[in-house]
């Protein structure tokens, strides 16, 4: 699992870890049941505080993205959100709204914006398919 911390993004470090793990899970870069590195080596590699990695992992656990098996470590869970559907929608709406505001400021019109969303979803699907193919090759 390769992560990259950017101190210029203005986003708290633990949230950067959370987001990147979520992105890896969505793109198939991490598969259900696959182990995440344990806290110490990941903290050393990223050269961040161990508490920061621990905080990111407990956030991922409470979001239902990973699970901790005592004595064995952290693993990516099957993609089954524990949240109710309307809560999940509400969470997504916040992010979508933000993207729409950004599109407005960048003068990207509605059609182009919707097209872009389709394109990006295709990219992610492609990535996932590639990872799946590799999995079957093994």
């Amino acid at each position, binding site marked *: 699992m390769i992560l990259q911390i950017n*101190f210029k993004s*203005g986003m708290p470090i633990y949230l950067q870890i959370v987001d990147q793990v979520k992105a890896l899970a969505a793109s198939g870069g991490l598969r259900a049941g696959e182990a995440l590195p344990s806290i110490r080596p990941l903290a*050393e590699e990223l*050269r961040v*505080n161990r508490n*920061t990695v*621990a905080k990111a992992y407990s956030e991922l656990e409470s979001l239902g993205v990973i699970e901790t098996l005592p004595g064995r470590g952290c693993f990516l869970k099957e993609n089954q959100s524990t949240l109710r559907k309307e809560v999940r929608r509400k969470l997504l709406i916040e992010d979508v709204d933000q993207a729409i505001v950004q599109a407005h400021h960048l003068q990207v019109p509605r059609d182009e914006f919707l097209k872009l969303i389709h394109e990006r979803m295709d990219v992610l699907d492609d990535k996932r398919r590639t990872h799946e193919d590799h999995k079957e090759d093994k």
Partner: protein
Amino acid sequence: MNSPTPVIQIENLRYAYGRAEAVHDLSLTVQPGRCYGLFGRNGAGKTTTMKCLLNLLRPQHGQVRVFGLDPAKHEVEVKRLLSYVPDQVAFYPWMSVRETLDYLSSFRANWNRKIEQELFDRFQLDPAQRTGSLSKGQRTQVALIAAVCPETDLLVLDEPTSGLDPIVRREFIEAVIGAYQQGIPGKRTILVSTHLITEFEGLIDEFTLIDRGRAVLTLDADHARERFQKIRARFAQSPPEIDLKAALRVRRDGRELELIANGSGAELMERLRQHRPESLSTESLTLEEIFVATLKA
């Protein structure tokens, strides 16, 4: 719920060497489990502050508490709970590395042999070598081993990486993260003074920036990176008159504007946007850039 006793509490500390005032009215609090940075230029008062915590100097005014104790009255208790890597590491030069560590461990109630071995391997030190012939980097590595193995609750690092080469610096930080920061989260506290901020960026939870003995800025690191922003705007013609008093610094270069914002980033972005710039971007400042921007403002 009672808040836990701070690991370090400094209140209105003052210290002068003769007429030269090194620390003026400095106050700061370090909570358990935090990694706290003391940032400042050379001569800002970092080492003097640390020496007051370690009872190597007596505060002339104000007070310092370590684990709630006065280091001058409870010297042994306080020293039992902390370890220290000074900026100038000195050992008895005729002793070997092994003898030095044995000597130092004899003062400690606890000494983790497993961590000692792990760090020996990581640093590739020769136990038989006399400390007098060690390089500066190797002496710092031995000092770090001696500071980590007793597994104290507080680790005080005074300019630990200055004068070391980049590889040794990296290894030093990784060893602090890996070997020192283990055990119960929220227990191991670190106070590190440095002007080489970039290397410690990911480790620092909270920091105080000191300048000429005074605390200029104390912030949580994530919060600081959110507050301090660099905004760049480019206009089609030379930039119009815009009220940018909310910016910490403004630089104009032809059609471009570069602002440093401290908490007023959103407001400034909105102002710039109203003048329809060709491009407008923002990024956060790193802790080192915050250090420079604050001291040069």
